[in-house]
């Protein structure tokens, strides 16, 4: 899922780098203005948890592996603004220290996973209401959507960079990530239910937008 250097054409990666800076700046300011003080200790702990979870690749069939991205999980525990900032920090550490994801492609990876992945992973649960069954389904859907939307954007960026013919590119990227998204949804749901049991009231806070 992390796009490396060399895959995207210069106009695509440079445009997304330029777009990511003000977007992340705005999200940092919103986090500073409205982040719930009680959750401050969770910032680093959740960031480290998602970082470690992303290190585990699991087989998804056809000779491919996937890993949790964690956008929906972060959004539903920290709120979407702080989740985007924490996910951006994870992507920066991964690119600079572990060479996972490109430095020039950092803006693309931030837009895909820290912005679209986080916010699209957040909204289904936010809109689901208080019925526990609907909410569980929405969390699962949010996990799936978080990963799938990031993959869809990555595919669009690769398509704009003309790395391969569109039809096989979209079919193979979206097919693989539709399956990986199911695991993302299941892990998101299981992790959130565990967190909710350990600390009731820390997930699904409706006053956060």
């Amino acid at each position, binding site marked *: 899922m992390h796009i490396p250097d060399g895959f995207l054409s210069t106009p695509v990666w440079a445009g997304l780098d330029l777009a990511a800076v003000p977007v992340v700046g705005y999200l940092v300011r919103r986090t*500073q203005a409205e982040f719930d003080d009680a959750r401050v200790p969770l910032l680093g702990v959740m960031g480290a948890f998602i970082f470690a979870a992303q290190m585990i690749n699991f087989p998804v069939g056809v000779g491919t*592996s996937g890993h949790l991205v964690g956008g929906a999980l972060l959004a539903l525990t920290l709120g979407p603004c702080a989740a985007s900032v924490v996910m951006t920090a994870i992507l920066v550490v991964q690119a600079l220290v572990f060479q996972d994801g490109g430095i020039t492609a950092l803006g693309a990876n931030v837009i895909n996973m820290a912005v679209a992945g986080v916010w699209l992973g957040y909204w289904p649960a936010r809109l689901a209401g208080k019925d526990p069954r609907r909410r569980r389904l929405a969390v699962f859907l949010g996990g799936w959507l978080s990963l799938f939307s990031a993959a869809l954007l990555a595919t669009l960026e690769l398509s704009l960079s003309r790395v391969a013919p569109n039809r096989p590119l979209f079919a193979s990227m979206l097919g693989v990530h539709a399956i990986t998204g199911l695991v993302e949804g299941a892990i998101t749901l299981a992790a959130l239910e565990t967190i909710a049991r350990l600390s009731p009231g820390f997930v699904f806070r409706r006053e956060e937008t």
Partner: protein
Amino acid sequence: MKRLLRALAFATLLLVVLAALASSTLPDGLKRVAAMLGFGSRSSSVGPASPFANYETRYFHSRWAAQITAGLVGVALMWGFGALFARTLKRKR
């Protein structure tokens, strides 16, 4: 809250060990598609080589030790980021 923080910290350390012991070595979706459609070779690296590239610390012969130490470095960096960001949040108020 303290219970949740302790549980998350413990789970994080467990995940680092699990990643070294049981993570799949198969390529991820993007790498697989890139290899299949012939653009995998375009992958390049910008900037100096990191001693922790590919989540393995360069100075260890044992792969497990290399992966666990690299994972712990990442976890420490994220905890550090959290502490710094928390300080900026408090200073703003």
